[in-house]
């Protein structure tokens, strides 16, 4: 660190510039707070919301329809949904989307100029609005800037500061520390409230929409004592590695225009594996089905869009420009040829898992809020929603901004920063830069990638293989201190790897805790969905000795309106039997 640290102050610090972060910053500024909106790249040019952007638009629903939608959310989440959040989402979405239209976000429209709804994964009725994410997020960025939000881009935050200087804290969050990813200059922000919008957790697999989100927010919040929920539903899968060349975003949109999944014999197979949802099934189920087809000798499998209408394909390419670029580069004509699909399995939070928040987006730590996919996505936990996440971020961001601004207004002065805590963070960040060592951050990424994408671990977890993986993850975690980072760019890669490795360790603990199979979580040694004993959340938090504490929470079904019909053990089936295919 060659420069003196940069010191900043604000009422509300928003870390992460996706839709939730932008909404939170804009709402907080509206309420009169001074706001810094941060992103480690540039807002509108990074993160999932840039590459795939859609909104689940449930306008003008009657009360009966709301009940139906809520039931659908809860059922698709295998009854683990936070039903308070379901109510909030259904209530708030219309207004939040009206705001977006007011901000000039131009959703796709029909020829008559009406908003055009398309179906999306996890929706029986098409209720998704599509737009090119780059353009939409650019608009949000401009708007935020105009409203007086201070933008702090190309700065990566790594740690939160606490009022008592302890980890985990008994006090509150009072700011954050990070560094400029180009110059390496340290940035220290004193803030009365901090809102995290750091996105889900993914490994770096060279897929544009998921490469930058590696769990920094999860890690920093976990360390100050925030609770993580649903970490066992983190078996992420993508099927959009096309023709072994390019991993494309926009899977829900491809499913939405009616793509068909076919095997080498030209047979459509998803109805066999998921009779209820068929081609609209979840990422995980589709990826697994493709692997199953290949294992049984009917591979390779293809994503077939030849029967789709040209205007739908044109819309798809317009709203997913990265796919359009790939089609141009490789001369793929979606109308003429199906695309070969290779599934990719990894530990990652596609649809669930993350910080537990209440309906005002508050975590259990004072002064710390979390918005969007870095939370446990209460309303769709372990579910199958395509565009739900962005709407949840939209609603959650607005609520977090409002609450954080009110909270900050009541706090008179900035809390003093604990010097010992600051020195410790400085020490951690400068350690990899001090002395040459042979190990690179890329080595860590390679090892953890190889470990978490291992097929048996991804598909047929049992206690032995989880323990084996956990041991390996801890071994890799131990190697983090032996890495050398010659510049700020490499330091960021090291910080990202550290977050991912530490979060994978917590995921493994959650896999061990949930002794049943449900949604994306499959335990080969417990091949049944246990509605008798396991309609529960697994919560992980950092104990006073900084060791992970796992606890099991009952869901408050006595006050929830949607209740499970039967409480019994259901054998987990997937096409052919799980245990058979293991051999």
């Amino acid at each position: 660190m060659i420069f003196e640290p940069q010191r900043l102050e604000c009422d509300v610090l928003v870390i992460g510039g996706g839709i939730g972060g932008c909404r939170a910053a804009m709402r907080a500024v509206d309420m009169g707070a001074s706001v810094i909106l941060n992103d480690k790249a540039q807002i509108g040019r990074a993160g999932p919301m840039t590459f795939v952007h859609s909104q689940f638009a449930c306008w003008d629903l009657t009360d009966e329809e709301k009940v139906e939608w809520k039931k659908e959310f809860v059922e698709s989440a295998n009854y683990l949904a936070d039903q308070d959040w379901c109510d909030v989402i259904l209530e708030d979405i219309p207004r939040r989307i009206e705001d977006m239209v007011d901000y000039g976000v131009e959703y796709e429209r029909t020829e008559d100029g009406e908003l055009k709804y398309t179906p999306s994964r996890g929706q029986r009725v098409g209720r998704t609005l599509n737009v090119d994410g780059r353009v939409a997020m650019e608009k949000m960025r401009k708007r935020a800037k105009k409203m007086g939000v201070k933008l702090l881009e190309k700065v990566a935050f790594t740690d939160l500061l606490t009022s008592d200087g302890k980890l985990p804290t008994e006090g509150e969050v009072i700011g954050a520390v990070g560094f400029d990813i180009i110059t390496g200059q340290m940035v220290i922000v004193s803030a009365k409230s901090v809102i995290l919008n750091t996105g889900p957790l993914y490994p770096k697999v060279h897929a544009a929409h998921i490469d930058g989100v590696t769990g920094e927010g999860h890690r920093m919040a976990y360390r100050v004592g925030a609770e993580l929920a649903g970490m066992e539903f983190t078996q992420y899968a993508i099927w959009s590695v096309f023709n072994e060349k390019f991993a494309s975003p926009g899977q829900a949109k491809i499913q939405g225009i009616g793509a068909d999944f076919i095997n080498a014999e030209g047979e459509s197979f998803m109805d066999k594996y998921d009779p209820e949802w068929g081609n609209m099934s979840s990422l995980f189920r589709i990826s697994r089905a493709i692997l199953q087809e290949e294992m049984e000798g009917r591979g390779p499998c293809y994503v077939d869009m030849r029967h789709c209408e040209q205007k739908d394909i044109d819309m798809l390419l317009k709203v997913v420009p990265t796919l359009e670029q790939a089609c141009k580069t490789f001369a793929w004509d979606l109308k003429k040829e199906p695309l070969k699909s290779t599934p990719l399995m990894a530990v990652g939070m596609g649809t669930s898992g993350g910080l537990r928040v209440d309906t005002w987006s508050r975590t259990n730590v004072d002064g710390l809020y979390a918005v969007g996919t870095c939370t446990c996505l209460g309303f769709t936990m372990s579910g199958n929603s395509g565009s739900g996440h962005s709407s949840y971020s939209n609603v959650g961001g607005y609520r977090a901004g409002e609450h954080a601004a009110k909270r900050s207004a009541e706090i008179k002065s900035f809390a003093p920063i604990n010097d010992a805590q600051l020195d410790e963070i400085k020490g951690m960040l400068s350690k990899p830069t001090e002395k040459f060592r042979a190990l690179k951050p890329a080595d860590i990424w390679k090892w953890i990638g190889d470990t978490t994408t291992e097929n048996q671990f991804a598909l047929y977890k049992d206690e032995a293989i989880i323990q084996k993986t956990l041991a390996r993850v801890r071994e890799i975690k131990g190697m983090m201190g032996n890495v050398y980072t010659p510049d700020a760019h490499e330091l960021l890669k090291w910080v990202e790897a550290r977050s991912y490795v530490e979060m994978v360790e917590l995921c493994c603990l959650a896999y061990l805790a949930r002794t049943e199979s449900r949604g994306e979580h499959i335990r080969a040694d417990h091949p049944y969905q246990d509605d008798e004993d396991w309609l529960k959340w697994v919560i992980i938090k950092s104990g006073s000795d900084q060791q992970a504490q796992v606890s099991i929470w009952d869901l408050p079904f006595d006050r929830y309106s949607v209740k499970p019909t039967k409480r019994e053990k259901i054998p987990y089936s997937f096409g052919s039997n799980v245990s058979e295919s293991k051999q």
Partner: protein
Amino acid sequence: MAIESINLETCDGCNICIDSCPADVLRLVDNVQDTGFDTWKVIIAYPNECHSCSLCEMDCPVDAIKVEKTMMIPTPFQSHDGYKYLTFRKGGVKAEKMAEAR
């Protein structure tokens, strides 16, 4: 080097692509030895991290950047003779067999 090329004749060193890049791959230099020019030019400083998202290509005001979309990741992948890791490299596919007998 693998995944993209920059036409240094047309690049005017405007810095837009560096702001655009979500993976922090690009840097601005005025190094005659690297680029052959003594004005600001963009170089691909960290090629391994490019994930072929094309934002730089789409944003470049003088169309100097060309992104080739080639995956460079290990993918757990089932082929007909057992599990394999496929590593996608430029110019072909290299397969390395994983541990025997799964």
